[in-house]
């Protein structure tokens, strides 16, 4: 039994590139999830029963089917209907749709938690529904949703490892290649484990700071 972490040194650059790809995919997918989640949240709270039903079904399906199956569905299925998209874009789309299902619940809770009185004050001053939603409801809901959405992001970082199964060389995919070159799977995967854990830890710290920053103005001043 020989443990030798130094064999990884020459491959750090390559792994870093993989990490960068993971980061890119996750950031794009987070944006996609929030947009998707916002639309679905609106649908869930809309007055149209049909819209509410569709939104509910979407959330239900994508929260109860394994991500790898969703991914394969898009990766193998889209070319069948003539859409030839590269692995990276397919991965981002799949992550966005899956993330959107969770994000919609979070944003919906954020919207419902807004004090009715504030909405009434806005209505009564003559603001249109659209302006009320974009200038008041959404900004407040997003501010209170920062922490839970942060969990979605962290989950996404971990889930993105599954993109390695569709030949994308993000962090896990790159690690697999390094293993094939060094024949040291234990060292590589142990380091990979720690790197992911460290990454998620840093992100959770960043989320905590962001939450405090954005909500500082809204928190009660200590008299």
């Amino acid at each position: 039994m020989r443990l030798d972490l130094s064999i990884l040194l020459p491959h750090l650059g390559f792994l870093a590139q993989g990490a960068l790809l993971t980061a890119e995919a996750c950031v794009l997918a987070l944006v996609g999830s929030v947009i998707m989640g916002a639309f679905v949240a609106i649908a869930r709270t809309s007055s149209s029963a049909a819209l509410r039903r569709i939104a509910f079904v979407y959330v239900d399906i994508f929260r109860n089917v394994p991500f790898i199956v969703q991914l394969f569905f898009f990766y193998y299925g889209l070319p069948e209907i003539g859409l030839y998209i590269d692995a990276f874009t397919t991965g981002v789309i799949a992550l966005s749709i899956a993330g959107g299902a969770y994000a919609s619940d979070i944003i919906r809770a954020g919207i419902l938690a807004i004090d009715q009185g504030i909405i009434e004050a806005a209505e009564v001053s003559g603001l249109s529904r659209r302006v009320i939603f974009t200038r008041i409801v959404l900004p407040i809901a997003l501010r209170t949703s920062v922490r839970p959405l942060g969990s979605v992001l962290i989950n996404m970082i971990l889930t993105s490892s599954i993109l390695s199964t569709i030949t994308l060389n993000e962090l896990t995919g790159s690690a697999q290649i390094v293993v094939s070159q060094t024949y040291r799977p234990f060292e590589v995967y142990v380091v990979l484990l720690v790197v992911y854990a460290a990454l998620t830890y840093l992100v959770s710290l960043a989320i905590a700071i962001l939450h405090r920053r954005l909500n500082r103005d809204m928190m009660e001043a200590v008299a």
Partner: protein
Amino acid sequence: MRFADFTAFDLVLLAQGLGVNIALFLATSLIGLVIGIAWAIVRYYRVPVLSEVITFVSELLKNSPVLVQLFLVFFGLPGLFHIRVTPVTAATITLSANTAAFIYVIAVSAIESIGRDQIEAARVFGLTRWQVLRHVLAPQAAAFAVGPLIALLVNQLQVTSLISVIGVVDLTKIGNILNMRTLKPFVVWTAVGLLYYAAAKLVALLGTRFENRLRAHSAWRGL
């Protein structure tokens, strides 16, 4: 000879695949439950060093991708210890440990949610720490933990889909095989998704039934 069409036997294959997922899910959930609770008890007794190690390992397992954990066990351990590990063994070890980490956190938070005053009262009456755990904390903690536990189990069922990547012939693997053969990804992956969805819903349903029965017998309603 190439069978490019679907046959009735494919349904059997799919069912078998799902069976593998469910079997592994049940086994690893049970083992994970036992280990996770054992860890929580260690933490309850505040065993020095061991408690910290457990917390560290649990955080590592919770905040890293399951796929990487699978690779570590399946590819890494044989390399380091010069042992042979079958895909099913690796899957069982990995998923049990992963489940245990989450159960540990749920158990700890459930125990800590119970008011200090009850523990103090019990101790003052002369009950040992074990007796307090067994008669005062455990029943209440169990009732408290059922909700998060069900959500966890539904999630872990979906996580089992990843064992296909290290070669276990589960539902996802069958999906891959059928996909290769019939080249009809939409049909195949929809069928696979549907089966996973049904299984997830079943677990959720049984879980809430169990939760309701627990509540019905609970003497601590509203206390």
